[in-house]
């Protein structure tokens, strides 16, 4: 066992322990403000990451929505059902006009118990990746192979409670739906004649697609052709043979341009984007660009939140300064005694400054732990409740900056109390108390 000595660190720690309430309150304040700042910064990054998921390996999105941003919000994030369709002929003309890697048609508009449905082709599962580099994975079952088979996103499966083999009836637009059996009272306009069989449940992707249900395009066309035929007084079962050109509609086209091996970017992107934009009947969007635009819109708001968190952090540094400064009045004798024993003015300055740094460093580390734990809890909750995958890990760069900034603030906060300790008149503070 090494021989005991007294060190500056022990004096600092003893001094902090001598006023536990003040020490813990100031550490807690710093921890809370650091956690708040890190969570806000992390949420901004994580939200960006979450929004980046979903567009996956799409280069361009075509729809008939009013604007490219609306097209992305509807076509990738299922914000609303697209209001205008695109004809099948238009889809074919776009697909054949350029050697795309793939052009996947999608149709939205139906739902099941509030979960949106996307009708699409088999390529949606075979070629489109909801997160670039991460293809679809099945938790159970298989992808649809025949009409009237349905595949459930992870959150939709969890939220609806549907299992493999169960039958569901889709609702036109949003509204109540039912499982196999008689239509429920107050149900929306339900496609009651055509039950879909659940054949697959997808693994979570962390994108909005997790909330959706997927059927093949022809089944969806048949549902709506049946509605048309009913309105026209035609009875009987509708089949693909009854489909007319006007029934074959899509609401979106996911496009991927040719790329060089090992690269996600396409040299033809801008040219093809400009070509498609000339067609006034459609809207073409670069999802990444639109998501950036969306973040520019909301960045002012989260900037305000982050500014508020910084103000809270500065307030906690001021509290540290006040707590230390006020404690100096009761510690002048201790400082004077240390000076008599041989401590220099610089050393007592350093001791008090170190106290401030210990408080803020402890608070910052506790705040990082708090933010990490809070992030893990929030991430688990978001994934479980809405299927949104938020990375709970803290951004190392932000964490280092916040840690460094907090310690720097702690240093600044300690300057005034340390200066007061530096100036303690030794001889005057050694006299017996009056």
């Amino acid at each position: 066992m090494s021989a005991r000595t007294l060190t500056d660190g022990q004096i600092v720690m003893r001094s902090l322990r001598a006023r536990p309430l003040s020490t813990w309150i100031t550490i807690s304040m710093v921890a809370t403000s650091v956690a708040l700042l890190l969570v806000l910064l992390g949420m901004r990054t994580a939200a960006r990451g979450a929004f980046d998921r979903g567009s996956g390996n799409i280069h361009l999105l075509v729809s008939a929505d009013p604007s490219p941003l609306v097209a992305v919000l509807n076509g990738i994030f299922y914000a609303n059902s697209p209001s205008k369709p695109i004809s099948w002929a238009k889809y074919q003309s776009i697909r054949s006009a350029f050697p795309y890697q793939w052009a996947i048609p999608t149709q939205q508009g139906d739902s099941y118990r509030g979960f949106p449905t996307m009708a699409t082709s088999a390529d949606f599962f075979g070629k489109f990746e909801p997160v670039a580099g991460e293809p679809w994975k099945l938790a159970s079952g298989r992808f649809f192979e025949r009409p009237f088979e349905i595949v459930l996103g992870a959150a939709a499966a969890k939220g609806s409670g549907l299992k493999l083999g169960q039958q569901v009836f889709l609702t036109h637009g949003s509204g109540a739906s039912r499982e196999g059996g008689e239509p429920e009272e107050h149900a929306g306009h339900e496609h009651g004649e055509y039950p879909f069989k659940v054949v697959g449940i997808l693994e979570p992707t962390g994108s909005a697609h997790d909330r959706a249900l997927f059927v093949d395009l022809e089944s969806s066309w048949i549902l709506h052709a049946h509605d048309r035929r009913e309105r026209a007084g035609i009875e009987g079962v509708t089949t693909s043979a009854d489909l007319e050109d006007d029934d074959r509609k899509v609401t979106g086209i996911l496009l991927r341009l040719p790329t060089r091996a090992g690269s996600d970017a396409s040299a033809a992107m801008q040219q093809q984007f400009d070509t498609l934009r000339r067609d006034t009947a459609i809207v073409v969007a670069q999802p990444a660009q639109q998501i950036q635009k969306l973040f520019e819109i909301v960045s002012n708001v989260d900037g305000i939140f982050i500014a508020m968190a910084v103000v809270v952090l500065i307030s906690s540094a001021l509290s540290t300064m006040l707590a230390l400064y006020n404690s100096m009045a009761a510690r002048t004798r201790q400082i004077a005694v240390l000076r008599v024993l041989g401590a220099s003015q610089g050393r007592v300055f350093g001791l008090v400054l170190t106290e401030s740094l210990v408080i803020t460093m402890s608070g910052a580390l506790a705040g990082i732990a708090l933010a990490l734990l809070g992030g893990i809890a929030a991430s688990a909750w978001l994934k479980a409740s809405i299927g949104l995958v938020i990375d709970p890990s803290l951004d190392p760069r932000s964490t280092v900056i916040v840690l460094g900034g907090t310690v720097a603030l702690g240093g600044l906060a300690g300057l005034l109390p340390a200066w007061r300790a530096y100036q303690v008149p030794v001889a005057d503070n050694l006299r017996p108390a009056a």
Partner: protein
Amino acid sequence: MTASAPALAIRDLRFSYPAASWALSVPHFEMAAGEHVLLVGGSGRGKSTLLQVVAGLRDLGSGSVEVAGTRMDALRGAARDEARGRSIGMIFQTFNLLHGFSALENVLAALMFSSMPAAGHEQRARTLLSTLGIAAADADVDRLSVGQQQRVAVARALAARPALVLADEPTASLDPENTETAMDLIQSACRAEGAALLCTSHDPAMRARFARVESIDEMIHGGAR
């Protein structure tokens, strides 16, 4: 400290507080190594001030103060603080212990600013405390009796093996019986450590304990050797 150097040598010392008409003036004063001197005089005559000037806690106006061969007046800032920690021990009327620290830590505090190697600090502190009758070295000083606290204060003053111990009215708040005990402790400890002792007191009964007694009034008029 050189072998022949006096524990304390003051020459032509002059000190005054800012904007004060009163001034402390000591033409010449010397203490041999290991010598014990009692400095007497009424309250407000400058005894405590002289000790503070000797310890380098106050800047003198002119003259010189040499402790164990080191010119304290020529040193500034950290160098003077270091010299004080190395060569001077101080005992106060109210002990001025570090509250919240143990008896051992109070003594270690004096050693942390000394030139003594850290490896020997604990043994030195425990030996001193044991010699002075403190068995519970790890006990918080606030839990010790007044007598034990004084022993800790003496141990702390002697920990760094100073050439000179300055005791400022160390028995002013004690009754005659405890005064005897306290002074026995201080003087015997200083003798055991070979430290010179400059003790101030306004108590006439203290004179009998010292072979050399100086009056502050005579000293400031150049009467001391």
